[in-house]
């Protein structure tokens, strides 16, 4: 293992009944990187995140984070070690205010609500959440705001690695641009390593340093965004083969 490796996934397999969602997948994420993880529907992207963050227990393989084997640990233990995540379908705290939701995340690393609240405000401001809506209840904000709050809540736990699960799904192009800027800022200015699972190619290609392609639960290709865009097997996986 190289010294700057943050997360190493080795020969990870996960089955749901007869369906193989992940088939012996190897992934490595290095410190400071912004890695895009792409693939067609059902490729196993979300399953990969769920296995890393402890939501699912993999049947085989290992997840090593900072040299420690975290395979099969409970989600809250993994969060404590420094892996945070967001959700494909946002999981807002509907009856809590925006600031309270983010404060909850910040309370992982401090005991004092007042201090956590200050940190939460800083993070919300950093990602450009409108100040006037800090006290708004979760049920009264829009989808993009939910996405930002989910992101802020995860950031508030001060992670070393942040996994974003389809963070721009369902957003308009102009909103995607907003998220693109925020994601880049989180990586460059907060120096947080990011794993971005995504469907929207335009977004992944514009933010990632390196792209990993999954297909039917297996690793299909890996490389820089431009290499991936012209990789024949990737094009085939996405669009199918030419008609004869």
């Amino acid at each position, binding site marked *: 293992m190289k010294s700057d490796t943050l997360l190493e996934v080795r020969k990870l397999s996960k089955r749901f009944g007869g369906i193989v969602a992940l088939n012996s997948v190897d992934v490595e994420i290095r410190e400071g990187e912004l890695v895009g993880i792409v693939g067609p529907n059902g490729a196993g992207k979300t399953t990969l995140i769920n296995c890393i963050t402890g939501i699912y227990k993999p049947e085989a393989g290992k997840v090593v984070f900072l040299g420690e084997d975290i395979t099969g640990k*409970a989600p809250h233990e993994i*969060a404590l070690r420094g892996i945070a995540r967001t959700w494909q379908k946002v999981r807002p705290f509907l009856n*809590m205010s925006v600031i309270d939701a983010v404060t*909850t*995340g910040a*309370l*992982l690393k401090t005991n004092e609500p007042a201090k956590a609240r200050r940190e939460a405000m800083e993070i919300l401001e950093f990602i450009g959440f409108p100040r006037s809506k800090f006290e708004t209840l979760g049920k009264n904000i829009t989808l993009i705001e939910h996405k930002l709050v989910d992101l802020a*809540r*995860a950031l*508030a736990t001060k992670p070393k690695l942040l996994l974003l699960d389809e963070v721009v799904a369902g957003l308009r192009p102009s909103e995607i641009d907003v998220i693109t800027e925020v994601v880049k800022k989180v990586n460059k200015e907060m120096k947080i390593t990011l794993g971005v699972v995504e469907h929207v190619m335009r977004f992944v290609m514009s933010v990632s340093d390196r792209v990993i392609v999954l297909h039917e639960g297996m690793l299909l290709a890996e490389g820089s965004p431009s290499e991936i865009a012209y990789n024949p097997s990737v094009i085939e996986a996405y669009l199918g083969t030419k008609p004869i």
Partner: protein
Amino acid sequence: MMMNIRKLLVSLLTILLPMLAGLPIPYLLNFNQYYILLALQSVIIASVALAWNIIGGYAGQLDLASFAYIGLGGILATELMINYNITPWLGMLLGSGISAALAFIIGYPLFRFGIRGVWYALSTAALVVILHESVIMVLGPYDYYIPFVEGWYYLRFRTWDNLYYFSLFILAGVIFLNLYIGRSRLGYYLRSIREDEVAAEAVGIDVRKYKLLALVIYAAILGFIGYIYIVSQRTFSYKTFSGPQSVYIAIIGIVGGLGSVSGVMTAAIFLKIVEEYLRGFLGGVLPGLHLLLFGILLIVVGVLRPGGLSTFIEPLLKRTKTRLMGGKV
């Protein structure tokens, strides 16, 4: 600095206010024992509902076992007093301990195996029934008057005034505990568990541990109150383990507004008074009619204020508080 002292005073006032408001009530009611007993019962119900607020309101677990813990703690304290002449002051603490222990024994496997939602509600409802039946099996279907003893040593008196004042202290304690938890890390964690357990777990919250903690705190308070409840009922029996009463507590917590101290307190006192009034007014005309009207009232509240009474009480309180603090929140 001035601001901080002012803030502190206002917070203190919030806790003491219900107590201060409650103190002159016996005098205002002309020491009418029936009304004072009613006031005592309202204060007890408010305390119980506020204890429920910790597990039901903050943590969002629809617990229907409140009278299991009240009964267990209360009967222990009462039996110790009758049989061994042990003061209820000690008995109440022991009752609190045994109820907390029961909550741990029940809660651990429930949360370990991820029982939640309606299944949690059903399991806790079953707990009351199990205790109800077990007590009948072991002790028989008894219904005792507590032999008459008097004085602060026994916390029993010829009139209800002293017990009423005592119950005000308990209420103030439970309010304090609620507000303290609400502002602490535990409060944030419990509320986030109520909103979304999976998301809470992903920001590093040990969901199982905190739910269990909330359940144990709730049960400990109820075990403590148990003796006072039994004394206010004059008799104690297997009937103390009452399923319908436990559901009633949950109704108060929901009608008041989940997690809202002011809402739950208002609901407890308001519903108790309305229920008693309807019973006195209509009980003789057509027995059972008061329950029907009471049910309709609950439906009206549910339709008009699905978020609970707190949705109009809290803004009102906030405005008053802002004014008291000098115009700034």
